[in-house]
């Protein structure tokens, strides 16, 4: 093995995996989740494992840590970590390795922390457990650790509970926990999925910096090829349990060898391309061209939002207690989730609503959908002020069918006990004009055809459908009543990039064909750029910037927009 390595790699690699095959026992016999995977990792090296869901990228890393669940087993192959045969070592040996020599951080940082223990104490626990600190100096060392992960005011944050910290801050605490014992290997499993793009940048910069400082090897597991390429030395692409390609980050972007890597690269949204470019070439060429953008019809806009405000009362235990005893205490200032925003939308136009979590974009979309009552302001739809109709009775309003929505999570938004056909038929049954029996079925099948869902799938339950198919069902349901306005709430956030590419194209074509208007809520500026005519950037409940998408992307006026744009991970080639 050493013979093939360059001279500066005389040392044996830190981690070596050979011909690893992992099987899971299921109801229908053993299923191979990972097949013949080989990888080597040297000290201080960063390896990205990239793949879509079901590619076996997480299983590979869990096997290295020996934390597979009971149904899984190593069928073949060896794992050597720092000279120890991890695959066959007794549990006690592996337990000693975990945490001290190799550590892992997970996707949802909040779930990884004990919600009712101060974060400082949690760090202390780990330090004491691994004999890195004594109870006497644990607090001091824990604060040092907090400083190391760049947490501002560490003495104060030591006393914070996880719920008092933001998602990015929690992930830093988790990183602090993982790195407390100075491990040699850090496995990060989708560490920034679910975090905002600016937070993602901060967290990833931190991980890479700490790794460099400590000469620590890192495995970054991600579905985002761009992220892996921006932060890793080498990238390994996996598909269906097999490694299809391993190369340096730059080489993989300059000259991807495997067809799957090329497909994945094409599907990753990036600057300077159109929606059709996301699809594999052979499909893209068959499809109709994107169509010319028609300037929005002059005259009355479809939707005018004026000075929309949503306030939530702030809870304060002290003042509510005081009031209970009759003391006159001023109610705390209410929290403004949406702070007086105004905009308009023309017929046939698509408007992007971009911002990070907590900026009020979801609250805005819920108010536009009339699922939530605004505190004040107007929502004028085709000349009628819809904010006058309370959300509770809006379901029975004739306007209900005019405004529909596609939800973020395709799984959560389908009733688990309804077949796809029944889900699509639901709005037709409630609001359609006495459709039933064969006419209903025909309409459902027509809708399924429109969204590209083969009709045999109509009789399946949600758990029998893939993510992309569920997304199609959700879209079919939203367009069943020919709405004039569709709010898309991050409709592709839960989907793999290749599925996202297909769904985005579908949404675009449907809009062209049916003449609907879209409000597209997203955190992903690149996706918004491809799908939307205009974009609104929101922050802290207000509008920061508004304009033609191309103009905003090319020359952002607001400082915040520039920050958002620069946080998108860019692979080295662009």
């Amino acid at each position, binding site marked *: 093995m050493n013979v093939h390595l360059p001279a500066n790699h005389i040392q044996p690699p830190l981690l070596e995996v050979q011909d690893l095959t992992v099987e899971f026992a299921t109801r229908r016999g053993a299923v191979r989740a990972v097949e013949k995977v080989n990888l080597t990792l040297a000290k201080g090296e960063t390896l990205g494992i990239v793949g879509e869901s079901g590619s076996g990228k997480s299983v590979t890393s869990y096997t290295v840590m020996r934390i597979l669940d009971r149904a899984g087993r190593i069928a073949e192959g060896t794992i050597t970590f720092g000279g120890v045969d991890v695959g066959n070592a007794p549990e006690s040996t592996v337990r000693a390795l975990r945490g001290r020599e190799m550590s892992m951080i997970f996707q949802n940082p909040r779930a990884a922390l004990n919600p009712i223990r101060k974060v400082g104490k949690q760090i202390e626990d780990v330090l004491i457990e691994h004999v890195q600190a004594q109870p006497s100096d644990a607090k001091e060392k824990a604060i040092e650790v907090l400083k190391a992960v760049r947490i501002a005011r560490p003495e104060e944050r030591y006393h914070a509970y996880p719920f008092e910290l933001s998602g990015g801050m929690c992930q830093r605490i988790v990183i602090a926990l993982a790195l407390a014992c100075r491990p040699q290997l850090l496995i990060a499993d989708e560490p920034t999925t679910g975090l905002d793009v600016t937070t993602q940048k901060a967290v990833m910069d931190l991980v890479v910096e700490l790794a460099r400082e400590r000469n620590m090897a890192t495995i970054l597991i991600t579905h985002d090829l761009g992220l892996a390429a921006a932060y890793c030395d080498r990238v390994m692409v996996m598909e269906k349990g097999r490694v299809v390609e391993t190369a340096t980050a730059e080489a993989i972007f300059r000259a991807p060898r495997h067809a799957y890597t090329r497909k994945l690269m094409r599907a990753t949204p990036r600057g300077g391309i159109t929606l059709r470019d996301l699809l594999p070439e052979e499909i893209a060429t068959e499809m109709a061209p994107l169509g010319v953008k028609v300037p929005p019809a002059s005259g009355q806009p479809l939707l005018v939002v004026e000075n929309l405000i949503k306030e939530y009362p702030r809870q304060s235990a002290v003042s509510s207690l005081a009031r209970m005893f009759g003391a006159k205490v001023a109610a705390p200032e209410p929290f403004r989730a949406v702070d007086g925003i105004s905009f308009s939308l023309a017929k046939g136009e698509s408007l992007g609503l971009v911002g990070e979590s907590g900026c009020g974009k979801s609250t805005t979309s819920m108010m536009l959908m009339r*699922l939530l009552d605004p505190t004040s302001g107007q929502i004028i739809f085709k000349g009628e002020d819809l904010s006058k109709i309370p959300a509770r009775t809006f*379901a029975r309003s004739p306007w209900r069918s005019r405004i529909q929505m596609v939800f973020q999570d395709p799984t959560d938004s389908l009733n*688990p*006990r309804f*077949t796809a056909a029944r889900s699509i038929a*639901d*709005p037709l049954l409630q609001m359609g004009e006495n459709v039933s029996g064969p006419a209903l079925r025909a309409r459902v099948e027509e809708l399924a055809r429109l969204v590209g869902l083969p009709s045999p799938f109509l009789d399946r339950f949600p*758990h029998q459908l893939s993510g992309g198919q569920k997304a199609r069902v959700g879209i079919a*349901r939203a367009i069943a009543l020919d709405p004039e306005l569709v709010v898309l709430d991050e409709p592709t956030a839960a989907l793999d990039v290749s599925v996202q590419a297909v769904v985005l194209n579908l949404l675009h074509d449907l809009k062209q064909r049916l003449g609907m208007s879209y409000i597209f809520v997203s955190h992903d500026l690149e996706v918004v750029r491809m799908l939307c005519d205009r974009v609104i950037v929101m922050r802290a409940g207000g509008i920061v910037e508004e304009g033609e998408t191309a103009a905003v992307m090319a020359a952002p006026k607001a400082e915040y927009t520039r920050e958002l744009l620069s946080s998108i991970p860019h692979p080295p080639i662009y």
Partner: protein
Amino acid sequence: MSTATADAAAPSKDGILSHARHIVSENPVTGVSFALFALFLLAAIIGPFIVPYDPLASDTAAALQAPSAAHWFGTDQLGRDIFSRVVVATRLDMIIAIASVALVFLAGGFAGIASGYFGGWTDRIVGRVSDTIMAFPLFVLAMGIVAALGNTVTNIIIATAIINFPLYVRVARAEANVRREAGFVQAARLSGNSEMRILLGHIAPNILPLMMVQVSLTMGYAILNAAGLSFIGLGVRPPTPEWGIMVAEGASFIISGEWWIAFFPGVTLMLAVFCFNLLGDGLRDLVDPQRRT
């Protein structure tokens, strides 16, 4: 709803039998409990027509006989055939159990879902009512209800339903509460469903599998409760054959060696409770579409 639901449900209906077969083959315990349940049902339906002796006819000449070929379970102090009485009693005990559970399933289930879904005043009222019921020792409460309303089968059913009410409310409330902001409920609102339709058409079917487990657990408890009431003389009155009374009547004879009088109805009672408790998992799997792959 009527035509549409039927229309949409049609494709899955043909699968129910094969699905049941699959569940039974996957878990033999479920198969045993289904078989036992079928046996009890059979005894309840045709029992009175097939038993060898009249369950009420006394025959003092044959009193206190040990189990034999003529009297499989022996005879009691009045010479009545215990086997016949045990079989005939099945119908009454099953009626009490099934009727009370059906009653509390509908009332408690609906109250629970409504309080979880609407919150606010609905939740407060339903919550306080069930807290009040829970504040009493449940069997004592059942005794009180039957004593106050009168010693009839209907009142036993009502009392058993009332003491189980909080259990159903709690399960249904918790489940409805987590689902009220779920995506599919929002989507149902967008489709123009009224609140009541969302409650009954979208949320209720989704918590059915969990309620089924509750049904099977309380069914066993209901039988035990009915027998217990009869045992202390507050339920069904002698000479009507009923497992609880039979155990009560036989209890005083155990000390003198005539164990079979209390033993056989007791074992039957135990088997019935056992069978209902095991039934839970099977019932849940049967109504859960996720298991139907």
